[in-house]
């Protein structure tokens, strides 16, 4: 069997082909990297109107305590994530990550509360390991249900609300990180006001056999266009958001990755539920005393994109290596090359100049505050 035939398909696979998508292998799936419009136009369309993404390759997992109480499920998940899950209000979502014993990051995830249930969305490339991790580490009283029978669509952009409101006007009253069960036409959906593009928008979980119906209905609206993984990557890079495997992984801690904002006070030293997650000693220590390197935004001074894993240097001669680029490319809305990478903490101040090795040349970059665009979340 060749690699192509081993790839998994999402419920929207045939629909992507019918739209003329160029398909590529991604995290074990055959996924659309772009449609005929191309990455640049797809990116700009999402920032100007509404883009529809198939993110069904991501894992959808439900956690339910045998007791039926949310608190039991939440407390169990808190043993794997340095996140305030117990304090999550009903029908609210929050960003988090699984950590390992060394304080590295096993995956990043979105956690939602729906009544007494916890719903977790994890990265495609990590989902088998995440599910095994949950089953091995959570107490027997917490059921881990994997929703392979569901698809996940993301609708992103300033017109996402108007597009989705044509199917159910209730979405207009949702705020950033709200979660609701809604009917979209006759399709039962779980809708969250979230996304990974830096734009206002929604992620919509629906039964797999209704995914194409929903996608067609949304794309019938002139403001809505299909968007591939190529633009998804440039959008999230402009938004300063981490890509698992590039910007974060088991060799980076949440504090090094500059995502310690995902660790609420209640889980930090002195908090009501301090520690109690894998790698707590290192991570709590880093929150108190700092780290030696940090993830930062990087703006190349020239026109050449600087891509991972380009090495970073303190000088233009390549004498003192200081770190590496973890994500990088061209930002269509930033109108130039942009990147993120790891530099020593003393060089993490915006305005600091560093140099990246690209094709044996040393290109100047300026450390820059993230994100590269202004997010338009509906707070």
């Amino acid at each position: 069997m060749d690699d192509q035939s081993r790839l998994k398909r999402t419920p929207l696979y045939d629909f992507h082909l019918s739209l003329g998508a160029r398909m590529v292998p991604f995290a074990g799936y055959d996924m659309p990297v772009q449609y005929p419009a191309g990455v640049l136009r797809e990116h700009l369309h999402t920032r100007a109107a509404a883009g529809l993404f198939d993110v069904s390759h991501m894992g959808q997992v439900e956690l339910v305590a045998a007791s039926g109480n949310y608190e039991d499920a939440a407390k169990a998940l808190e043993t794997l994530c340095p996140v305030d899950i117990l304090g999550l209000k009903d029908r609210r979502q929050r960003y988090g990550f699984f950590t390992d014993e060394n304080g590295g990051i096993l995956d990043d995830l979105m956690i939602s509360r729906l009544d007494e249930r916890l719903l977790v969305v994890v990265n495609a490339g990590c989902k088998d390991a995440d599910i095994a991790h949950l089953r091995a580490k959570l107490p027997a009283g917490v059921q881990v249900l994997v929703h392979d029978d569901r698809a996940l669509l993301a609708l992103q952009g300033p017109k996402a609300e108007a597009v989705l409101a044509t199917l159910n006007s209730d979405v207009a009253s949702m705020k950033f990180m709200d979660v609701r069960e809604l009917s979209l036409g006759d399709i039962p959906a779980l809708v969250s006001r979230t996304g990974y593009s830096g734009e206002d928008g929604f992620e919509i979980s629906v039964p797999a056999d209704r995914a194409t119906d929903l996608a067609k209905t949304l794309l019938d609206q002139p403001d809505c266009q299909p968007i591939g993984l190529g633009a998804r990557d440039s959008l999230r890079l402009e938004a300063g958001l981490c890509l698992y495997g590039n910007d974060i992984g088991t060799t980076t801690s949440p504090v090094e990755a500059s995502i310690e904002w995902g660790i609420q006070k209640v889980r930090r030293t002195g908090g009501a539920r301090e520690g109690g997650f894998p790698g707590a000693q290192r991570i709590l220590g880093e929150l108190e005393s700092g780290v030696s390197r940090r993830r930062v935004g990087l703006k190349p001074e020239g026109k050449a994109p600087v891509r991972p894993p380009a090495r970073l240097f303190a000088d233009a001669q390549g004498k003192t290596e200081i770190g590496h680029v973890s994500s990088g490319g061209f930002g269509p809305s930033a109108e130039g090359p942009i990147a993120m990478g790891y530099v020593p903490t003393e060089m993490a101040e915006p305005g600091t100049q560093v140099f990246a090795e690209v094709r044996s040349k040393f290109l100047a970059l300026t450390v820059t505050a993230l994100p590269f665009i202004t997010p338009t979340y509906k707070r």
Partner: protein
Amino acid sequence: MLKFTPEHEWLKIEGDVATVGITTHAAGQLGDLVFVELPEEGATFKKDAGAATVESVKAASDVYCPLDGEVVEINQAIVDDPSLVNSDPEGAAWFFKLKLANPADADALLDEAAYKELIA
């Protein structure tokens, strides 16, 4: 004389100078180009050496020197506006002019019919 390489460069050969670019097929495969880096005038390259770099939103790719020769002119227009390579790859968006070391070597390259068969 119009010639092609299996790496998707085209050459328009006039005397001992070849105008070199990338084919419509290659430009389509690369997608939207956002950056082009060209060699210096006066630089010499062996056949198949990386002579230029093109970058799309997603990835960087090399453009190879199709024959031995010296770069005698570059097309600054595509450096200033890389999207020209997508809109007119086999016309205005030529990359460089190459003074061929051995013009007869061009006979070994693909003609238009053979190239079309290759990408069919």
